[in-house]
């Protein structure tokens, strides 16, 4: 007869885990300098990660529920909150969807202004992302340079929209105000200067042999797995899938511009971090093209009824944001408010790849893999 060991009664809700001596559980986050606003429960055996469980939700604020109580216009400042430094792009699918629901046309000039604003925002986002990628790898210069050069684009966005981060600039039917006089010259000058700076990033960061040795062949996501996991944006393109919503399903005037998709084959952390860098160059190209082709004058906003209503209808629109495809699903029931609004965002879709990639990696690779997924915790929580 085996002796029955008397167990202490645990308080309700407390779990008792079987503790293995070899396995150590680390709570990476939410107050960890390398986690962002989320927690990754990492189990390590020595220096190897045997299990990783992402636990987002620390910045969940119920944007989707809040949107059901607000009309189509007052939703605008709210829906850009999840990614304030990419606020134009996160708002873009919503605005396109409402335009479909209400049935209004956008003036040609407004479409170009939207494209310019969206690409400027993409640069702002990628620089912010790159800054954090730099500091995650212990490269403090790569934190400061993009964070400083981001000022160039913030300055441009502020000239257009009057706000530095939360622009609230796109509205159904166009944009809220015209660009200021001589904006084209200023924009061209700053974009040209920034292209020179991008080369410097290459010298000190991307061509750095230590960085390459550190991030190459870590967290390899094969082409098949990238498709199977449903990743999107730069993660997908780094794995060799040629997919960009701007090219495949062009919205506004992207079909009139020459957009090049940056695809790398390797699928490792280095490739995943290099694709956004190439995307910034591509954004500069697009901005230059759009400035050239933009009608010099014309209407900028189609007037909307004061309280627009959608029909008994539903719509799903998607755009390419800084983190991949951002979709907006609106169910309308003939009311000024959306009946249900769902944001499908790149961060949330890329999150699924995190536990898949982290298993079997070294602990030292965790920041490199985690942040190369182009993940923004606030957006994933919405």
């Amino acid at each position, binding site marked *: 007869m085996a002796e029955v060991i008397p167990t202490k009664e645990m308080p309700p809700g407390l779990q008792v885990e079987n503790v293995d001596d070899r396995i*150590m559980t*680390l709570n990476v986050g939410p107050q*960890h*300098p*390398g986690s962002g606003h989320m927690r990754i429960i990492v189990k390590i055996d020595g*220096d190897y990660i045997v299990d990783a469980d992402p636990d987002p939700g620390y910045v969940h604020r119920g944007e989707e529920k809040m949107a059901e109580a607000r009309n189509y216009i007052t939703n605008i400042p709210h829906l850009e909150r999840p990614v304030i430094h990419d606020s134009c792009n996160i708002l873009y699918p919503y605005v396109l969807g409402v335009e479909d629901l209400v049935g209004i046309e956008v003036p040609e000039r407004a479409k170009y202004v939207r494209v310019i604003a969206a690409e400027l925002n993409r640069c702002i986002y990628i620089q912010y992302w790159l800054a954090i990628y*730099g*500091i*995650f*790898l*212990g*490269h*403090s*210069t*790569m*934190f*400061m*340079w993009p964070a*400083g050069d981001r000022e160039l684009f913030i300055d441009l966005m502020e000239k257009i929209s009057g706000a530095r981060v939360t622009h609230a600039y796109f509205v159904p039917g166009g944009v809220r105000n015209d660009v200021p006089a001589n904006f084209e010259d200023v924009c061209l000058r700053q974009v040209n200067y920034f292209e020179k700076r991008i080369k410097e990033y290459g010298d*000190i*960061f991307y061509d*750095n042999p*230590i*960085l390459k*040795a*550190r991030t190459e062949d870590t967290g390899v996501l094969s082409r098949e797995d990238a498709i199977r996991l449903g990743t999107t944006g730069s993660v997908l393109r780094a794995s060799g899938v040629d997919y960009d919503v701007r090219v495949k399903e062009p919205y506004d005037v992207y079909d009139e511009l020459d957009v090049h998709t940056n695809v790398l084959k390797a699928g490792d952390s280095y490739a995943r971090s290099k694709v956004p860098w190439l995307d910034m160059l591509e954004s500069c190209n697009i901005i230059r093209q759009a400035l050239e082709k933009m009608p010099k004058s014309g209407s900028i906003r189609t007037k909307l009824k004061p309280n627009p209503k959608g029909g008994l209808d539903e719509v799903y629109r998607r755009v390419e944001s800084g983190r991949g495809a951002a979709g907006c699903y609106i169910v309308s029931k003939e009311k000024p408010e959306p009946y249900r609004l769902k944001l499908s965002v790149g961060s949330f879709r890329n999150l699924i790849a995190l536990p898949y990639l982290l298993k079997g990696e*070294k*602990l*030292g*690779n*965790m*920041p490199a893999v985690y942040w190369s997924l182009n993940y923004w915790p606030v957006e994933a929580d919405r």
Partner: protein
Amino acid sequence: MSVIAPKFRLGYFLKGIFDNAFWILTIVTLAGIPLIQIVLFYMDLPVIDGELLTAFLAFTWLFNPTMQIPLIKSLLYSDLFRIAAFPGFGFAALIAAATIFVERKMLAKLQLRVGPFYCGKIEGLLQLAGDGLKLISKEIIIPAKADKPLFWAAPVLFVGTAAAFVALIPVAPGGWVVADLDVGLLAVFAVIGFFPIITILSAWSANSKFPFIGGIRALHQMVSFEIPLILSLLGVVILTGTLNLSEIVESQSNFPWIIFMPIGAIVFFTAMLAELERIPFDLPEAESEIVAGWLTEFSGMMYGLVQLGSYLKLYAFAALFVIIFLGGWTGPMFWPPLDTELIMEGTPIPNFKGDPVLTVHAPGLPLFDKDPNEWVLQEQGELQYTSGQLLINGVIWFVLKTVAVIFFILLPRGVFPRIRIDMLLHIGWYKLIGLAFVNIFIALGLVYAGVLGPGGIM
């Protein structure tokens, strides 16, 4: 729009001042005055001009203009001064503080920002003092179930070991070193060997996961890089045939060893970066992976002490590099030293008949020209004479070279990312040790070819 904070009350302000005054007075009377008495009445005091210094004499001479300089001189040549001020702790701490300032400003310049700017009016000179005050005034938090004695001891031990390291560094000719050992280099390695022990003890005693992982990493790193560190210096030891650091410096009066052993210098520099936990080898403190590594649980002045210790260590390593590879204090004189006789005996000026009527003393440097214990040493037969010019010249060269090395230690922080533990161990065990052996073979070749070393041409 500057408005006094609404909570401000004059009564509290005055109470704070009185509180402070009360505690300062109490501490001075209870501890300060007894300390002064102990120093004055119970310590070994120097002999000045044939008279044993007593408290009475010291107080008297303090106000006697002719005896002030001998008094200060006797202080300068005492062991206490060497340990606390000039070649020892104070000097090193000053250079460490300057290092922190330079690091901040240089890194800021590289990263297109301004760095500390407002504290101290000029480019944030006093920022470090502000940071020190902040650290002192912060609460010290000790994790629950930590091993308290060890946890408290670790920062103190760290600073103590770093200071012991500093004590072995000669900075100027004529024995300006706290401990002039014949086995100086071995002593250096012995002291370096303490750091991993302190690190792992503090990491273990904190009873926390991240310090533990950081401590293990530090242990790996320091132990595996000590071997190339030692091996890279063997070449110099073979060529000079001595372990005494002062003699190693003197052997380089014609050319620094880096000319013959660049490989050894590179290996030593790399291993030095790893021992110092500087980027790109700052794995034990990798913030994005393990918060702050083995420093995670330190707070307040405990953290400040560890930082002080690590910057002292940085100075000591840079100085070691200068001593062994860059020729220490040797360098062209800024002004040629005067003859000993000119200073001590003066030049007799004869009158027209040829009889000496006047003796002109050449102006030496009043504080450094002569050892006050000269007559004692003369009797013992070991008079040391250091010219003031030689001392100042040596210190200037030494500091210049050290600052240059420190600059190169700081520079990678702005340029390189952190590497991974397996890459680090690979570099340490495969590449650096191999290169160190290549360096040793070069040294042996030079010796056997008869070019350098004991019995060589030079």
